[in-house]
């Protein structure tokens, strides 16, 4: 009975190795490039953060320098209105009243509003 036998001289070599040339850079080069880009990005980011911090400091100090004069202006206005309210009260009630049991300056929460208050 005939059997399948290997061909005379044996089978041909099976081509299992690939011989494709590797494209591009070496993997470690890609890694290095990515890290370089990231490092530059972080460098710029922290530079920006530092500059923002300085800009914020500058802005806040520019406000801090003019805040006392605005506050003084506002305080004078509050005191003026406080005395005006006092005088009005005295005129209406005939006596000085004291709403709060405190010496402190308290900005009034409730007040008398004339009918034509809107400017």
């Amino acid at each position, binding site marked *: 009975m005939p059997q399948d036998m290997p061909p005379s001289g044996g089978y041909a070599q099976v081509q299992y190795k690939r011989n494709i040339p590797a494209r591009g850079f070496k993997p470690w080069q890609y890694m290095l490039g990515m890290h370089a880009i990231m490092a530059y990005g972080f460098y710029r980011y922290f530079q920006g953060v530092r500059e923002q911090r300085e800009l914020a400091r500058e802005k806040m100090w520019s*406000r801090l320098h003019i805040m006392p004069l*605005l506050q003084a*202006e*506002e305080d*004078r*206005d509050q005191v*003026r*209105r406080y005395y005006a309210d006092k005088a009005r009260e005295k005129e209406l009630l005939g006596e000085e009243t004291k709403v709060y049991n405190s010496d402190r300056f308290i900005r009034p929460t*409730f*007040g008398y*509003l004339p009918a034509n*208050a809107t*400017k």
Partner: protein
Amino acid sequence: MGVPFEALLPYGIILGMFGLSGYGISFVKGFANDGKKARWNRDLWDRQMMERDLRLTGSERGQSSNPTAPKGFDVSNPWKVEKRIF
């Protein structure tokens, strides 16, 4: 073969309308800001300073380097009031 002009009419309308609204917005903004660039990202400080500018110059964007306030400025500070809720 040339494109018939009727095909271009809608584009003309679209362009014209967008142009009109864009110009309108820029005109209104310029009018509201005295011809200056509009303020943005204003915080409470900026807003109250603009109210102060309004009291001093009559315009929210008006500027004045006058060291002394005009007459009546010291009594013009308004209190914002609302109806009592309790």
